[in-house]
Structures are given as structure tokens and as C-alpha cells.
């Protein structure tokens, strides 16, 4: 059983499980949208005193923060007990393309060049991670949702605005991947 779980999950099983989470939250009278937590955390930190956007009763969002805490624990359980003993099966074409940009495929989830503690000795790593985070936070609130709120919940409810947002996700993602990233991470 545990060996079965330790394998990477097939895409169709993963997709099914994500919808199970969405339905579970709907059954509990909530909705699946993760990035709202970022707004809630700003509000908890007292941002509501200066900015009206954060002036709301964050305690109504307590359930989502608990979901977030669970997500962190789930990540820990996965790496501690369920991690795949074999290298991630990344497409050979991606491995080759990334090598051209100076990113070495290490068989794990994330590249050492960006996410290892050693990479933090370069100020550029701090700048890339911080600015990437700012773009995600700013963009998800601007668009009113992220992958869970728009691509999963919104598209499931056939919302045209969510489709527009997802198209935006791809415009930005393709621009970054093909035009900007090669200049940002060239060694």
C-alpha cells in the first residue's frame, strides 16, 4: 500500500483527487480558493488599519487558514513518508532546454540553482524569489483568484471571467518561460 502511494500519482488520479477536495469544501459550505489566505494574513497582521481592502473580519476565514496549515503538514508528510525514491520523470526535452539556461535537473521537485539554501549566497536568488512572489500575490488578488479559484472552481462553474483569467495565466507564463526567464537565470 505504502509503496503504491510512494509512486508519483497518475494525472487522472491526481485530477480526480483535486475535485474531491473542491467538493469536500463545497459540502462544508465553503469554496476552494487558496490565494484568499494571503489577503487574510495581511489583515491578521493589521493591514486593515491602513488599507480598507484588508479591513474585514478575518476570523470568518479561519477555516481556510486551517486548510493552509494542513497543506504545510501535508507537504511535510509527503517528503518524510511518501516521497518517490526514483527521480522525477521530467521530459528529456525540458531537461535539455533547462540545461541550456544553466539549470541542472536534479531529479527532485525543484532546482538547486533557485531553491537550495546554498543558492541564497547570491543576492540574485533573493531578488528572483521575492519578485516572483510579489507577481503571484499581486496578480492573484488583481484577478480575484489563483489556479484553485479560477482554473478549478471557476471553470467547473463555467465562468467566462475565470476562463479569461486562465488565458492571462498562460500569457504571463509563456512570456516568462520563453522570453524573460532565459535572461534572468543565465549564469
Amino acid at each position: 500500500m505504502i509503496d503504491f502511494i510512494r509512486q508519483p500519482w497518475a494525472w487522472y488520479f491526481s485530477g480526480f483527487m483535486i475535485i474531491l477536495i473542491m467538493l469536500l469544501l463545497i459540502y462544508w459550505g465553503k469554496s476552494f480558493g487558496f490565494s484568499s489566505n494571503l489577503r487574510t494574513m495581511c489583515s491578521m497582521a493589521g493591514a486593515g488599519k491602513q488599507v480598507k481592502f484588508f479591513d474585514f473580519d478575518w476570523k470568518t476565514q479561519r477555516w481556510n487558514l486551517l486548510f493552509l496549515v494542513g497543506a504545510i503538514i501535508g507537504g511535510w508528510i509527503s517528503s518524510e513518508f511518501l516521497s518517490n525514491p526514483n527521480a522525477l520523470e521530467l521530459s528529456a526535452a525540458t531537461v535539455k532546454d533547462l540545461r541550456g539556461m544553466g539549470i541542472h535537473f536534479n531529479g527532485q521537485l525543484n532546482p538547486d540553482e533557485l531553491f537550495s539554501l546554498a543558492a541564497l549566497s547570491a543576492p540574485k536568488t533573493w531578488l528572483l524569489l521575492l519578485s516572483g512572489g510579489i507577481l503571484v500575490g499581486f496578480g492573484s488578488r488583481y484577478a480575484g483568484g489563483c489556479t484553485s479559484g479560477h482554473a478549478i472552481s471557476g471553470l467547473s462553474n463555467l465562468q467566462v471571467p475565470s476562463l479569461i483569467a486562465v488565458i492571462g495565466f498562460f500569457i504571463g507564463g509563456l512570456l516568462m518561460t520563453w522570453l524573460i526567464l532565459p535572461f534572468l537565470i543565465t549564469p
Partner: protein
Amino acid sequence: MKSIKYILAGILFGIIMSKSEAVSWFRIQEMFRFQSFHMYGIIGTAVVLGVIAVFLIKKFQLKDAENQPILFPDKDRSYKKYIIGGTIFGLGWALTGACPGPMFVNLGYGYLTMGIVIFGALLGTYLYGLLKDKLPH
């Protein structure tokens, strides 16, 4: 006791995100380079099943755990905020390989540097709140 179920659902979510490898920077690069079906398969399966599930919930007017009707509010009708906000989000998604959920899953997985990305995301959210009224929506 009511709180625990949300933590458990979050744990399951974290495991799903890890085991599907949707939290992987490499997988997101592979997706934006159209070099594998994997991520499209995950999102595609979820959307197809989600559309069917939401359709059935509406058709049979199903109730939630507290016997309240399940409602699906429509998103605001606009296009500017979705296309501009979405594009900004996409730039960050491809750079960090992480959308908001996976940032926290990665942190738990042991990628402590993801803390910088999370700090950035909070800063970005705050900046949006600060500039909201000056932006086109």
C-alpha cells in the same frame, strides 16, 4: 473538532499536490514549454469532473452538510482585471514554479527558500490592496 476537518482536508491537499508533482518547478516549466501532457492531464481531468459535479449539484439542488442549498456565485463581469491580473500572476507562476497553494506545500516539504516567495506574495497582495483604486478593473 470542527476545525480539525479543515486541517485534515489541507493535509490531503498537500499530499495530492506533492504526489501529483504539481508543486514542482520542473513540472511547471515542462507545462509552459508544452513538453508533457502531465499538468494538462491533471487540470483537464479536474475541470471535466468539476463541470459534471457542479452541473449535478445544481440540477438536483443538493444541500450542504448544514442542509443549506449549495450556491455558486457568479464572478464579477469584467475582463480587464482578469486578463491583466492573470498575466501578472502567470509571470510569477512561471518564475517561481509555484502558485499560492504549492508555495506552502513546498515549505512543508522542506524547501525553506519558498519562505521568501511567500513573503513576496504577501507583499504583492498588500501592494494590490494599496493600489486597488488606481488600477483599471
